[in-house]
């Protein structure tokens, strides 16, 4: 029973209506810690989008041609984690050789992404919702861009908060959590427009 949703709609839906960060709260650890700084947020967002697209595509191939035929779906978690880790390693090497400029901007963020739950989360959604290959790529790219958008928004808001008086007890993580709550509520306004299944 494959999902029949149009890949293009899926792409936009995963950016706005079902933003992986603000509706599923995946990848929040790095979201909160890195969003202190706009430049790092930009780099990390780009790296997440990049890695998410590639690992999701490769995971789909592994899932369809190895895991399902061999009937070892109960091990898919571990397999996905291994795939993510290996792909990040390989990407790091290739980017270092092929494009030093891109390597510099992604640089330290690439290894960090191995443990970003948004990556594994998106891959698991892909498995549960039984997307086909095209849908997977569109969904993964969309989710990555959605994550990127969300962290940039938060970084921008936090830069403004820095300049305003915040009650002492709420400084830092406290006000950030409240901000994320507001952002999530704003994004909920989009939900229901498209049902992503």
């Amino acid at each position, binding site marked *: 029973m494959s999902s029949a949703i149009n890949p293009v709609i899926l792409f936009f839906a995963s950016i706005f209506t079902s933003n992986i960060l603000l509706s599923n709260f995946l990848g929040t650890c790095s979201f909160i810690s890195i969003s202190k700084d706009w430049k790092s947020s930009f780099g990390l967002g780009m790296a997440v989008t990049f890695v998410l697209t590639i690992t999701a595509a490769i995971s789909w191939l592994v899932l369809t041609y190895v895991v399902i035929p061999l009937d070892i779906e109960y091990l898919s978690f571990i397999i996905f984690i*291994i795939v993510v880790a290996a792909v990040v390693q390989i990407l790091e*090497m290739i980017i270092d050789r092929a494009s030093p400029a891109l390597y510099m901007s992604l640089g330290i963020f690439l290894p960090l992404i191995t443990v970003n739950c948004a990556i594994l989360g998106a891959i698991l959604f892909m498995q549960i919702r039984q997307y086909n290959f095209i849908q997977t790529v569109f969904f993964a790219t969309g989710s990555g861009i959605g994550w990127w958008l969300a962290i940039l928004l938060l970084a921008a808001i936090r830069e403004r908060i820095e300049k305003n008086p915040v009650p002492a007890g709420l400084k830092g993580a406290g006000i950030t959590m409240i901000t994320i709550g507001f952002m999530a509520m704003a994004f909920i306004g989009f939900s229901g427009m498209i049902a992503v299944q």
Partner: protein
Amino acid sequence: MIDFLYGPLITAGLAAGLALVIVVLDAIVNNYGDVKIDINEGQRSYTVRGGANLLGTMAAEGVFVPSACGGRGSCGACKVRVLSDVGPHLPTELPYLSAEEVTQNVRLACQIKLKKDIAIELAEELFSVKKFQSTVSSIKTITHDIKEAVFRLDNPGEIEFMAGQYVQLVVPPYGTFKESVQRAYSMSSKPGDRQAVELLIRLVPGGIATTWVHQFLKEGDRVELVGPFGEFHVRDTTAAMVCVAGGSGMAPFKSMFYDILQNSSYPEKEIWYFFGARSGRDMFYLDELRQLETLLPRFHFVPALSEPSSDDKWTGETGLITDVLERFLKERIGTAKGLEGYLCGSPGMINACTTVMTRNGINLEKIYYDKFA
């Protein structure tokens, strides 16, 4: 029966497969093959294996760019101008480069990974720089915080240098330090004594190299030196030399004066040497330099104490060396043949002396010192 092994085995196989892909890719992607290094547009060129950093690769070829940290990107000394494209400046380089250096594509040699052919510019004198294996033949305590160490050169057995130049002392890992560092010290030995190098090393609080010399180095130890470096040397003119130093700044001048004595060089040059210390326990080589005055009548030694203690029984000049210098420039030193300034010390000392010298008619272009920072 063994069905339960089936899944884990496939998972392990998958992991092994991916690991294999990584290893194979690593061998292909990180193999840069042979790379050509071109220095000063064809003056020299080396073909080396790529993949390592420029500083270390050149050192292996016998070209030594000065470096204090040994290639960890923490001293900013190994600057070279790169003429070919090696990509944008790295964040690890930028803190050490001025805006002008960035536009000229000056890079830190230790941060450049050799991936393809490269063309660089190097000062020619660096080609005569060698790495010497040496043995410590003596360490003497000169004052409470200055030691005089003599290194006998084993391989190569001789060094050629100008009086006033410096060498880098390679400090091996010791105690809790895990990495080797290099520090620069002026040679106090005469260029005529080619088989050995003498250094004066003053203990700096918390200093890694000076602590090593003062507390760990023993006679008979094997040590590496790299050199000679530096632009500080006696100018071949008839103008009088006005030299100012304090502490271990004595080193290059000791070398210069004894070299002049030995070779009777620059016979028309008058030499004035101002040496400042706080009290008697910081003063050294007094007898040697007074004896030099009798051997070399055109040499005038002016030691000064800024805060002599009562047991020093000091009869010489007192006050800050800059004040003594000013007094002598105004009253004692003849300007008939012109004057040249020679300084060795901290940037603060050099600034203060430069001010006094220019105020008393020594041209700024005629004031020489080894740029310290």
